[in-house]
């Protein structure tokens, strides 16, 4: 990027000046970026600050920016009023459905990757299921769930989340498996390895990053999902988004408790965002260059 390198005819002092200007512009860019970033994250930062404010400080106008008497009581109270149940239910439903997606999805992805072309009709049909807005299938699911007594059950929600995430998991895993050279498998097969050894010792280690990525995505989508949980469950199964929505709308909202549960709900995702941005940038980086 440095201009001093690409201008061979420039004399030394001019090059130094250019470098200085480049450096200065880089500093300016960083300052602008940090300012944009701070403004951008303000609503979430405010939520974080609110989570540590005691009750008396929540309803002052104008509000205090930093909590004056910081407290953790919102976290314990938030957990007790249903945040704990929400986190438990969400964790349970999201992990079981993710595991099911991977178990059902991996073999299908393998078959798609090895015996079908990359953008074939079958892959497209599978993925197009993922494109449907959830409000479209939800009416049918509701009627079906009433019929099969799946309404307000963990099983019902797990089935729906598996259905929701399976297409994406299959497509992602298929893309990963396509990158694994067939020669590894052929070598193992010539050595006489049975199919389960082939899977366990060759394919699984090689596709571990793909399984991890697909699993994380399925987990995030199930963790954040709201509409299906709202419509297809009642009082028994209460996932975290649903718990948050109901505290917010049907009770006098205690912002501190809401903030605390909200922070607990998003904390794991904040940790994952570093991994996810690398994944997203690389997966969209196609075309010229590497390929």
């Amino acid at each position, binding site marked *: 990027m440095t201009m001093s390198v*690409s201008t061979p005819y420039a004399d030394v002092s001019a090059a130094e000046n250019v470098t200085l200007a480049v450096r200065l512009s*880089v500093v300016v*860019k*960083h300052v602008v970026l940090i300012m944009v*970033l701070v403004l951008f994250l*303000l*609503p*979430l930062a405010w*939520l974080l600050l*609110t989570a540590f404010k005691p009750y008396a400080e929540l309803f002052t106008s*104008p509000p205090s920016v930093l909590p004056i008497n910081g407290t953790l009581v919102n976290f314990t109270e938030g957990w007790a009023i249903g945040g704990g149940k929400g986190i438990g239910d969400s964790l349970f439903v999201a992990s079981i459905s993710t595991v099911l997606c991977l178990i059902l999805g991996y*073999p299908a992805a393998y*078959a*798609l990757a090895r015996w079908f072309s990359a953008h*074939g009709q*079958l892959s*497209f*049909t*599978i*993925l197009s*299921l993922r*494109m449907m807005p959830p*409000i*479209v*299938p*939800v*009416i*049918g699911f509701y009627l*079906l769930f009433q019929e099969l007594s799946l309404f307000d059950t963990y099983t019902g929600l797990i089935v729906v989340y598996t*259905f929701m995430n399976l297409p994406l998991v299959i*497509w992602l895993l298929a*893309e*990963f498996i396509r*990158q694994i050279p067939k020669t590894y498998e052929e070598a193992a097969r010539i050595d006489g390895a049975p199919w389960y050894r082939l899977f366990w010792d060759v394919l699984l280690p090689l*596709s571990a990053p*793909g399984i991890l990525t697909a699993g994380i995505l399925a987990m*995030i989508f199930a963790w*954040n999902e*709201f*509409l299906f949980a709202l*419509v297809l469950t009642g009082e028994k199964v209460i996932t975290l*988004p649903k718990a948050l*929505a109901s505290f917010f709308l049907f009770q006098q909202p205690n*912002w501190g408790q809401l903030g605390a549960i*909200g922070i607990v*709900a*998003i904390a794991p995702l*904040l940790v994952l*965002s570093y991994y*996810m*941005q690398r994944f*997203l*940038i690389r*997966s*969209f*980086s*196609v*075309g010229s*260059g*590497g390929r």
Partner: protein
Amino acid sequence: MTTIPVQGTALPPATKTSDNRRERRATLFLLGPALTFLAVLSVWPFVYLIYASFTSYQLAIPIPIEWVGVDNFTRMMTNPRFWSSLGITGIFALVAVPLQIVAGLSMALLLNGVTRGREFYASLFLIPMMVAPIVVGFSWNLFLNPIYGPLNNLLKAIGFDPPAWAQSPDWALPTLVVVDTWQWTPFVMIVLLAGLNSIPQRVYEAARVDGSNRWQTFVHIVLPMLFPYMMVAFVLRFIDSFRVFDIIYILTRGGPGTATQNLAYYTYDMGFGRFEFSIAGALSIIQLVLLTGGTMAILSFAKSREKGPVSDSPLPPTVFNASAHTFQGENP
């Protein structure tokens, strides 16, 4: 889904019929469970949906269900609430999404200008799209709260008379557009950042040698090369714009009045607020048709404009061209 188009080639030596048969059986065994699961769960509720939309199905009223044909659809055509919800869905697709493209492009260009810390910034910018929309909804509700919220107190302090944002008839919809844009601009930024990464350095150098200035380089070289990526972002965001529901549910509940009721919220309200399943079913089908038609129109426009990554697949390259080798820690 009954006929499976085998387009790829099999394993190299698979010319013998026994091999073919074994392979076909393996395919069935491997694909079978997942496809059966997906097929059952997409067809069965869909049959219910279509059935409901052509009958007088109402959950709360124990009258015999009658076949009413396309009645539910024609009733929608003359219903002003339907048209207003269609308009609000359109605003999300045609105002919020382009807004996100422009904002995402600016952010990507800004980020592309620095080399150090780019991944760090990108992961922080990505936070809003990772957060559950419900949490996004109420953190904005808290932020915009007319009495306790920081924004309005700040605006009052510097002499403005701010509206009650989500509760105001004029500002509720713009507020939702802003929140949606806030949440999803990072996604567009990531896609366009990948696009900018794909432009080789020598292209910029060649432009400089040819004497074009920064603006000319941007308009005549960078923008055209980014076009396929912009189309990818546009298509994916267009599809997602039909999903906008959670933030409406939390911030406005469709109100004030029907000011923020898009098709998804209207369908929800009809189905689960009033138990008019037949109307809700018809609305669902209308949405599906609009979404499919809109997506196909955008894709064919993209194909006619550019021979890029968009053109050789029915869908944009997106996540699915992820290459495993770059994943295992190699830097491009």
